[in-house]
Every structure is written in structure tokens, then in C-alpha cells.
């Protein structure tokens, strides 16, 4: 009954009412959809990841306000005309067997200077002879003591101790000196990359009783002052080396040369 009444009641409603309700409803739905899509669309906009890039520029440094002769000094050091080394070391204590720098070969001529020079050379030769007496001389120079694969035939036989490469004490001593020097020799990679065949020979005078390096001289520069400086700096930082086995001590007294090379 109530259903029939309801139906009658609906039939009595004006025609425009459902149309108006429908219009309002659809308009609302459309508005809601537009708003939601706008909001969602805004939220889902992809975020750029590359947003933390920061500008860093490299600019020229202003001129130094100090009146430092750094350019001139550096140029002089580069050209080898100014000594980059620290204050000179005290002169070495010279023993009878101390290494001497080779002197120029005297020109022939009976001058007094030449005679003095010749006498000096003769005294050196006498010392040389003394050294040879100490050695069972079947060779004089061991340039390959650090190379176990060397085929060189110039190994040393001192006091009948035999070939240096066969003497484990001697080899161990060479290794110790090598390690000490290596630990303090730090040439720059930038220099080595440009000059892979660099070599600096530094001659050392060593106190045979203490192992203290009393003098060092760059005998053969590499041609690159910074590389030579690294070599002499290594020698200075080492300061004292262990003494070789007693049988090899005479050789140390006659001079120790270090060839500094790139890694």
C-alpha cells in the first residue's frame, strides 16, 4: 500500500525536478573530478633528480702581496744556478780509505802543478794498491748487487769471502740500505710520467765506524732538479746506514754510490 502511494506521489512531481537534480549532480561530479585530477596531477609530476649540482668555479688567485723572491728563486733552482739544498753539512772526517772525488786527468807537461797533481794521484794509487791487497781480487766493482738475475761478471771477492751475490749477509745489507733509501725517496709521479728514464747518482761518504753519512754529492744529475732534490733529501733523511758485514767494510770506505730511479 505504501509502495503504491509512493508511486502515486512520484507521478505527481513536476517533470523539471529530476532533470535539475541530475544536472546539479553531474556538475558536482565533474567539478570534483577536475579538482582531484588537478591535485593528483600536480602531486605526480616527476621530480628531477639532478637538483643538487652546485656551481664551483676556478678563478685566478690574486697576486701575492708579499715581496717574496719566489719566482726568481724557483727559476734559479730549476736552472741549477741556485742551491736548493739546506745548509751545508760539516766536512767529512777523512780517513785513509775515504772516498775521494775523481780528479781531472792531468795534462802532460812538466809544470809544478802537474807534478803535485801527479804525486797526489800516485798516493791515491798507493792507497788503491793497499785496497787490492785486502782483496782476493778477481773483480773490482759490484754494480749489480741488487739484481739477483744479473749476468754481470764484475762481482766482488773480498778477503776470500767470494762472490757478493753468494754472501747472504752482504745481500741482506744491500737490501737494508735499499729499503731505507726507498722509504725516504718520494719523486713526484707527475715528473716521472714525463721522464720515465730519470737517474740520479749520489755518492756518499760513510763513517766506517758509525755508518753516519758524512758527505753526499750528486755525481750524475738527472737533469730534473726536483728529482735530484728528492734523491738528496732521501739521503739526508736517512742520515745513518747500517754497516756492511766486516769483510765488506773496505769497499764501503772506498765509496758508496746510490742510483735513484723512478718506481
Amino acid at each position, binding site marked *: 500500500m505504501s509502495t503504491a502511494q509512493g508511486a502515486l506521489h512520484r507521478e505527481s512531481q513536476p517533470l523539471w525536478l529530476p532533470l535539475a537534480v541530475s544536472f546539479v549532480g553531474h556538475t558536482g561530479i565533474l567539478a570534483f573530478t577536475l579538482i582531484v585530477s588537478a591535485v593528483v596531477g600536480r602531486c605526480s609530476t616527476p621530480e628531477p633528480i639532478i637538483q643538487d649540482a652546485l656551481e664551483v668555479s*676556478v678563478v685566478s688567485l*690574486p697576486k*701575492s702581496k708579499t715581496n717574496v723572491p719566489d719566482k726568481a728563486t724557483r727559476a734559479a733552482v730549476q736552472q741549477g744556478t741556485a742551491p736548493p739544498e739546506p745548509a751545508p753539512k760539516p766536512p767529512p772526517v777523512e780517513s785513509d780509505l775515504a772516498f775521494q772525488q775523481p780528479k781531472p786527468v792531468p795534462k802532460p807537461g812538466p809544470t809544478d802543478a802537474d807534478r803535485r797533481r801527479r804525486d797526489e794521484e800516485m798516493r791515491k794509487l798507493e792507497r788503491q794498491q793497499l785496497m787490492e791487497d785486502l782483496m782476493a781480487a778477481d773483480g773490482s766493482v759490484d754494480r749489480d748487487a*741488487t739484481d739477483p738475475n744479473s749476468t754481470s761478471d764484475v762481482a766482488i771477492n773480498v778477503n776470500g769471502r767470494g762472490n757478493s751475490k753468494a754472501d747472504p749477509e752482504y745481500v741482506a745489507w744491500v737490501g737494508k740500505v735499499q729499503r731505507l*733509501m726507498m722509504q725516504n725517496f718520494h719523486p713526484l709521479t707527475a715528473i716521472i710520467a714525463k721522464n720515465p728514464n730519470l737517474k740520479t747518482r749520489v755518492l756518499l761518504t760513510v763513517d766506517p765506524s758509525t755508518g753516519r753519512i758524512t758527505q753526499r754529492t750528486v755525481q750524475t744529475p738527472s737533469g730534473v732538479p726536483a728529482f735530484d732534490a728528492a734523491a738528496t733529501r732521501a739521503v739526508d733523511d736517512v742520515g745513518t746506514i747500517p754497516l756492511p758485514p766486516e769483510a765488506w767494510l773496505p769497499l764501503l770506505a772506498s*765509496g758508496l*754510490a746510490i742510483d735513484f730511479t723512478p718506481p
Partner: protein
Amino acid sequence: MLSILLATVTAFAQGIVIEVPGSADVPLAAPKPQLPAGEPQREADMVWNAMWTDLDQSGYFRLQDPAGYLEKGKGVEPGTFDFQPWTTIKATVLVKTRVYPAGHASCGGGADKMCADVYAYYVPSGEELLSTRFRGPPESARHLGHGIANAVLEATTGVAGIFGARLAAVGSQNGNKEIYLLDLDGFGVTPVTRNGAINLSPGWSRDGGSIAWTSYKKANPDLYVKDLGSGRTRVISNVRGVNTSPAFSPDGRRIALARSESGDADIFEVDARTGELVRQVTEGGGIDVSPVYLPDGSGMLFSSERGGGSQIYLQRGGKAQRVSFVGDFNIDPVVSPDGTQVAWVGRAQGGFDIFVSDIDGTNAIRITQDTADNEDPTWSPDGRYLVFSSTRTGRSELWISTADGRHQKQITRTGGWTQPTFRW
């Protein structure tokens, strides 16, 4: 006769000759930056810390502890200090820095730019190696430090450093595996994905503008590419089965990946923009995965089970050549930027380790050992370093190593980091 004798004397005089090659690990001193009186220390510390970390990671230097420096309060410019205190502590390279805060008159960069000046010296000769000013906004203080470190490396080794470079990696700190970007020193972590799913094997495009990776966000392991400039992501490969281990071609137009639509995984190339199949690179013969292009595009490395256990193969012109011969399980090859070397992961006693060899597999060396699992190697853009993940601390962290394995330093410290890949 006399001259012959003299020559003998000279030869004998040089009784012992010892050859001493130079050593690496150059001692480097770098005092804290100078700062105008009364200025805050924060940015200066950030510059110095970034530089210090970079130089430490570089593998070229043995950094000397500032606590042992004898010099205090001297200048940074040539002639404003004495080298003797640095000689005494046996420093070989001296790096002096000076920082001007933003707006300082001496900086000259306006109110919003700070300056960091660097002077580097070679102590044995007193030679000035470097004098440069870096300028940028204060929030870029770490980047100024990276710039200084790169310049110091260039001045001392001849090749600029790569510090400040970006890595992509998988991070699982929040429980999911998401893709992140981070700086080489572990700072600047930026999320690439935030989908709460498993995201794996990120790979950069050569221009650094896009990252491809595999995601399980729709259940199947599909391949996606994200444009890092716009942030837009698109699906590149979603065949049934795996779509994984993407690698962009050198020209950026193709992506090589492993797909298993027909059973065992094989290597395919697809268009990097549309995902359309370009070609199938390998077919049959067991699982083929982890492709990587040679830098000149002439071939591809990948790992394959075609010979039994997983091994690394180099394919050029349709012919594959095995290049790994150490052990029975080798995976994840990566080729050096110059194309001459390959690094990969091999199973060794005690876990997984990183191996490096020439591109043909010769001269293989193992650069990690006895340090738990070491995986996911990636080459630095300059080919001098490898970054990889390692569990040696008990957590999975990113580490950087020189390519010879001599120097290894930890990058991240939060745990949960795997699969790093360098932006080249």
C-alpha cells in the same frame, strides 16, 4: 799508462752501487685552512675535511697527522713560511689552504660566494706546484674541497682526481632495496626510486642523464629507465621472466640486458628510448647475464654458464672468447674506461673477491682477499680506482680501491649498500 791506471782508480772508487727506485705513498702534510680572524670555522672545516678524505682515498699519499705539525700560524703563500718545519717532519708535499667566507672583501665573489685558495709545494725543492682559487656558494663547501683535492692530484701525479664524482647504488637502509645517488665520499645521498619494492642493478647512461635498473614494483623484474633531468620513468623491457643487468651502449642509443623469456637468460639489445628489440646477442648454452659494452663499442663482456660453471666471456663479431680462468665461478665483469682491463667477481676461498686482468684475461690479479665478500666492482672514470661492496666490517658497505688493490678505503658507514656504479 797513467790514464789507464787512473781510469781503474775511478772505477774502483765507486766500490758499491745500489739502485733505489722511488716509492709510492708520498708523505703529505695539509694544515687546517687559514681563515680571517673572527670568521666561523664551519665551511672551512667542510672544505678541509672533504679534501683530506679525498687525498686519503687517492692512494698516492701517506697523510701526516696535523697533531705532529711543527709550524703554527704561518702564511700560505710562497715566502710567508719556512720549509724547515716541514722538512723536519719529512713532509714531501705540503698543501696549504685559505678560506674566505661569503661576502668577504678578499674573495671578490659577491655576497653569496665563498673562496678556497690552495697552494701546494714540493718540500724537497721548495717548488710551488699549485696555486688556485675555488669559488662557490657556501653550501658547496665540500665541492670546493673536492676541487682542491683534484687539483692537488693533477699537480702531483699529472692526472686530475675524480673526487666529487657521483655513484648510483642500491641502498636497503629503510627495509626496501631502493636506488640512490651518492658522492664518492658517501655524502650527498639522493633517492632515485621510492616505490617500496625491490630495485636492483642500476646502470648509468654515458651522458649521466639517465639510469636504468630492474624493479619488482609490478611483481615481475622489469627494466625501467629514469631521466634524471625531468624525473620521468618509463618501462624499457617487461617480457615475462627476468629483465635485468642493464648496460647502456657507448653512444647511449641501446641498452644491453639479460632476458629469460625463452627459459635460460640470454643477452639482448633494445632501443634505449623505445625498448624495441634491436637484436639477440647470445642464444642457448646456459645462462648469459651481466653484459657490458667495450668502450669503443666493438664488443661486449658478459658472464655465461656455457662452459659449465659461470665464467667471463668477451664477444667480438659474434665470436665469444673466455677470459676468466681463475676458479669455477666468475661473474659481473666490468671493463675499464680505456678498454684494456676487466674486473670481475670470483668465488675464492672464504667468499667472493674482486679480480682484475687484461682484457683478454691475462695477468689476472686478485685485489681483495681474506675480507669476507667483495662484490659489484665498478671502474672510476679515470680507470685508476674500483668501487665495490664489501662485508668485511660485518655490514655491506661501499669501498674504493686503487686498481692494483694496494689502497682500500671505506666510503659508506651506514650499512646496506650494494651494486655501486660510477657515473663516467
